[in-house]
């Protein structure tokens, strides 16, 4: 029992736990849309593209969450604009902006020496280092994202399944599309703290995909994803604490192992 409770005598571990659980719930719920819409590259790109935002936030001494939101929104808007303007497919424009923003972040980071932040922590996630300000921002923005997903559930579902049918039925699909991208950006920015830029995709798609293997319907699979995500985040956090690992890789490994277990399990369930 001590092994379970010992870490939480430290307040940094309590903060880490809160943020991990928030990410464990939020990322798979959002990830259900990423998986069913094929937005994985978009998610990966958004998470890399916010690097300049993080660096600037650290320079200004504000919460990285606040610094990254505008960058993510600019990125999402630019992707739509460039795809329309150049005629390249979405994945090409996403790829170009992805590397462009990421490189910009790296350059800014190496130019401004002596920042109180390690590149490793940004890239791989260091949830043990979050502040109370980060915790409050995480909870506030997380609740906001869940509320929006709850209130617009039937419209988002319709537009995801059959965008043209939804438009004919009178839904404003363009608006819904932008709403979904904004939410994706928000969830990614929150998740960055726990899993880092490189591995945000892990929390976004792996638990959601695992849930999809085990649960057939969409809304229940979102809930299953949140449960799997929470288990993943907490387990990963323990590994991170006891083995002194960055939290991103340890959570990611747990998530992928659960997925690997679910693949044969699905055979048994669907029989």
């Amino acid at each position, binding site marked *: 029992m001590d092994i379970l409770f010992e870490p939480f005598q430290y307040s940094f571990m309590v903060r880490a736990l809160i943020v991990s659980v928030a990410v464990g719930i939020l990322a798979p719920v959002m990830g259900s849309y990423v998986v069913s819409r094929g937005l994985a590259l978009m998610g990966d790109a958004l998470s890399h593209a916010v690097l300049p935002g993080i660096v600037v936030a650290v320079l200004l001494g504000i919460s990285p969450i606040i610094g990254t939101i505008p960058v993510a929104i600019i990125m999402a808007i630019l992707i739509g604009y460039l795809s329309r303007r150049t005629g390249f497919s979405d994945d090409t424009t996403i790829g170009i902006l992805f590397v462009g923003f990421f490189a910009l972040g790296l350059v800014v980071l190496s130019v401004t020496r002596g920042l109180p932040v390690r590149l490793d922590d940004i890239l791989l996630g260091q949830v043990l280092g979050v502040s109370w300000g980060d915790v409050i921002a995480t909870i506030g923005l997380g609740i906001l994202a869940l509320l929006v997903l709850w209130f617009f559930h039937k419209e988002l579902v319709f537009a995801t399944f059959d965008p043209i049918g939804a438009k004919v039925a*009178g839904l404003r699909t363009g608006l819904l599309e932008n709403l979904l991208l904004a939410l994706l950006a928000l969830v990614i920015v929150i998740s960055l703290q726990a899993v880092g830029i490189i591995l945000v995709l892990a929390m976004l798609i792996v638990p959601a995909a695992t849930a999809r293997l085990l649960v057939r319907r969409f809304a229940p699979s979102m809930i299953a994803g949140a449960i799997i995500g929470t288990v993943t985040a907490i387990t990963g956090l323990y590994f991170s604490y006891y083995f002194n690992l960055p939290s991103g890789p340890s959570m990611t490994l747990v998530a992928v192992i659960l997925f690997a277990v679910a693949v044969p399990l699905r055979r048994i369930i669907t029989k």
Partner: protein
Amino acid sequence: MSENFNSFAIRLASTMGRKDSTTTVRHGQNGASMVPRDKQPALVVEDVMVELGGKIILEEVSFTAGPHMLVGVLGPNGAGKSTLLNAIAGLLPLKKGTILIEGQVVNGAHGQAAYVPQQERVNWRFPATNWDVVMMGRARLIGWLRRPGHKDKEAVRKCLEQVGMWEKRSSLVSELSGGQKQRVFVARALAQEANILLLDEAFSGVDVASQEELVAVLKELRNEGRTILVATHDVATLSARFDMAVCLNRHVCGWGPPDEVTPTLIEELYSAHTSLHRDKDE
């Protein structure tokens, strides 16, 4: 005129010893101004021109369809069948002309028509059950920020029963056969409570027996008063399936009962094709 009418109604009401004169008036006015739905054309397409990416896809397209009408939209690939349905659905801006649905100008998609898309345009990765799909049709009627109520659930049940898919309500729509998928989408169109139904290439990828089942469902809906437009390139079955046909090849090259329209226009439509066999559908 309405003042006269009002006072007359009030007098009438008072002589009949009724206090509620307003209802009488309202009834009277409605009766005077309303055109019975059966007499009003359900769909008017007038001199429509549609341009996509600088290319004219449709030009001088005009026809009028009434209620109780099952219309086949016939034409070779690239004739503009889908474009016409999209324009009626309000998805495309018109370069010229007007489209009226039940007397109202179509100006952007406002749910006046219900649409059954080509199957390849639906995201089959999304795990929706048949129940979920039909409930989507209620989205606009339920309204923003609200959840489905008892009335919506009843409506979904009725619509699924009507197309014979109620037993399969919990199956994933992606696991159904082509014909069953179409029936579920028709049920969704019904749940939307629109009187105009648009089906884009409804028979492609559907085996012949299932095509007939789908046609039977469509005929039943036609009998209830709906106007149904189905894009098809199947000439052979046209007269057995449809009341009216629009032959489309950028412009309307024929509009009328299928028997009258087809023979004379097959030449124009399919002059480039050597065979009339229904090879494209299978």
